[in-house]
């Protein structure tokens, strides 16, 4: 028999409604799995008491036929989301001990709809990273076995220095790994330059970054305000559609929130894509791209064509500029957004001989290396004499990047298909230690989407030669997440449901 944790979110929902399982049973199964998987380091805080209390209330609502759309569904929450009275530290030392007295809009939507919180998920510190190695709480280990490794070998490494085990991607590494390891039915995540799609791709899960403005940013610790967007990671396209419907919606407390009704995304899953025009951007065939990524992409094209879509070559000429421009805009905004972490009102304080010394010591100790680096570069590009050369130029380039997409959409393109990442997952400690830019290249396919504010979805499409998941990315028109769900489901169906790794870590 299928274990409760092996159900997809949609299956669990149906089982709960059919009375085949209770919310408490489902929750307990997840809490048990989480305990056994603690070495993967997916969760930085678990909330079992709260989870069981919520589950009991869910069961009561099932009994009184008062169940919400996510009733009884156990979820993991990225540590970036404020959760009332619960660990909310963006996996940074500087927010040591911080427990907000407020709940983010997105999570309150989830609880409104009946979902259950299992705990807070590990992530790169302040969402800055592509491997979940910058977390103050240590790296997350991907549930995927490295090529050729035995389970014993992996278990030994897990209890040791973790060398050679795989990263889950980042920054939503805890979210992606927890979903892949079946430690929750779905997880909240955030995406500033690829932080939903890249970890989803590395772990064989599905992740969608909705259009900027679709989900409220209120109560989510800010990284780069003009790029940050919340979204779900789950095991299927349908599960993502279900979660996003609950997460999305206008919020008067976020001035950049989009005011329009939220569609029932689940309805788009399984819809025909016949006649849809899919753009293939030639600039995404980057130099040195592994042949297997290229093959995967072509395979995707064939599947969509077979499903009746029209494939067209398009050009997005400013693609190359997106990553460098991102590494100006995002750090600039971050340098300002992270100024509030000063040791005065919450979190860590390191005493100093005067106020400035207190600030400097607190921030030097409280922020990790990667965060400090980005604050420094962000401060530099905004400083007198450099602002126009860097920041203003990058924002102009953003306009050009967006114009590229607008032109493609004006020519009738419904969605764009690209690879999600330039490679499969790599090993812990393998990248970026000598040159930070090496790590940044992970986001080369995803970051343009944030720069243009568009929706993007990563869906598993096959395995690498090393047996690791590889994904394709779909980029949509603004606020047309529905088309992405329809197309992604075709890829998902064509590729065949990915076999997630057996729990070797238990």
């Amino acid at each position, binding site marked *: 028999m299928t274990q409760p944790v092996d159900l997809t979110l949609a299956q669990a929902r149906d089982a709960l409604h059919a009375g085949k399982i209770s919310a408490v049973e489902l929750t307990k199964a997840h809490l048990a799995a989480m305990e056994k998987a603690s070495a993967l380091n997916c969760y930085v805080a678990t909330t079992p008491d709260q989870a069981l209390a919520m589950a009991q209330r869910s069961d009561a609502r099932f009994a009184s036929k008062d169940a919400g759309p996510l009733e009884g569904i156990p979820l993991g929450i990225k540590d970036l989301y404020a959760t009332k009275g619960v660990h909310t530290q963006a996996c940074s030392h500087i927010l040591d*001990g*911080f*427990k*907000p007295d407020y709940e983010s809009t997105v999570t309150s939507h989830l609880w409104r709809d009946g979902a259950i919180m299992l705990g807070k998920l590990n992530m790169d510190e302040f969402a800055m990273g592509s491997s979940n190695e910058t977390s103050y709480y240590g790296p997350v280990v991907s549930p995927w076995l490295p090529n050729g490794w035995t389970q014993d070998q992996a278990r030994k490494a897990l209890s040791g220095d973790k060398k050679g085990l795989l990263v889950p991607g980042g920054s939503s590494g805890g979210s992606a790994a927890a979903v892949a390891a079946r430690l929750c039915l779905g997880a909240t995540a955030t995406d500033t330059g690829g932080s939903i799609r890249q970890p989803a791709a590395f772990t064989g899960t599905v992740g969608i970054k909705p259009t*900027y*403005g679709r989900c409220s940013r209120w109560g989510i610790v800010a990284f780069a305000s*003009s790029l940050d967007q919340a979204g779900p990671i789950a095991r299927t396209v349908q599960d993502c559609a279900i979660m996003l419907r609950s997460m999305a919606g206008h919020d*008067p407390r976020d*001035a950049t929130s*989009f*005011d329009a009704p939220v569609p029932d995304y689940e309805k788009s899953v399984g819809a025909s894509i016949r006649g849809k025009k899919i753009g293939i951007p030639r600039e995404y065939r980057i130099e040195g791209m592994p042949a297997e990524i290229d093959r995967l992409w072509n395979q995707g094209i064939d599947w969509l064509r077979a499903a009746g879509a029209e494939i067209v070559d398009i050009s997005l000429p*400013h693609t*190359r*500029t997106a990553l*460098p*421009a991102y*590494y100006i805009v995002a750090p600039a905004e971050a340098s300002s957004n992270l100024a509030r972490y000063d*040791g*005065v*009102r*919450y*979190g*860590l304080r390191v005493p*100093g*001989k*005067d*106020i*400035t*010394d*207190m*600030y*400097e*010591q607190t*921030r*030097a100790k409280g922020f990790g290396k990667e965060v*400090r*680096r980005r*604050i*420094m*570069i962000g*401060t*530099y590009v905004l*400083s007198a004499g450099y602002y126009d*050369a*860097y920041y*203003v*130029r*990058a*924002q*102009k*380039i*953003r*306009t*050009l990047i*967006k114009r590229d997409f607008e032109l493609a959409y004006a020519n009738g393109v419904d969605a764009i298909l690209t690879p999600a990442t330039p490679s499969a997952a790599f090993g812990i400690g393998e990248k970026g230690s000598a040159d*930070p*830019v090496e790590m940044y290249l992970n986001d080369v396919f995803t970051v343009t989407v944030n*720069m*243009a*504010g568009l929706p993007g979805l990563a869906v598993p499409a096959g395995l690498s030669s090393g047996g690791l998941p590889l994904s394709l990315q779909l980029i949509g028109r603004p606020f047309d997440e529905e088309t992405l769900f329809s197309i992604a489901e075709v890829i998902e169906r064509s590729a065949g449901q990915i076999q997630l790794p057996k729990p070797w870590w238990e």
Partner: protein
Amino acid sequence: MSVDQANVRRIARLARIAVRDEELPHLAQELNAMLAFVEELNAVDLGNAEPMTSVLPMQMKMRQDVVGDHAGPEIVTGNAPISEDHFFLVPKVIE
């Protein structure tokens, strides 16, 4: 453009991040690597592009002028490392 150690010190000061002298060469090298990475943007023809101010064409909504949320001094200072009588305390500031 490239940064030297004095620049690094100035930036760190602006950002209020303490740096030790021995870190300076490495930090300068990292910043220069990033600046080299973004260097290629200088070659981009910007045409008449305006700098982006909002990624999607939305109009900013405004709130009505109504007094609503006071967190309350208890909650406002509840997470503070040091507070007294609902004030935040900081090392003395000389004006």
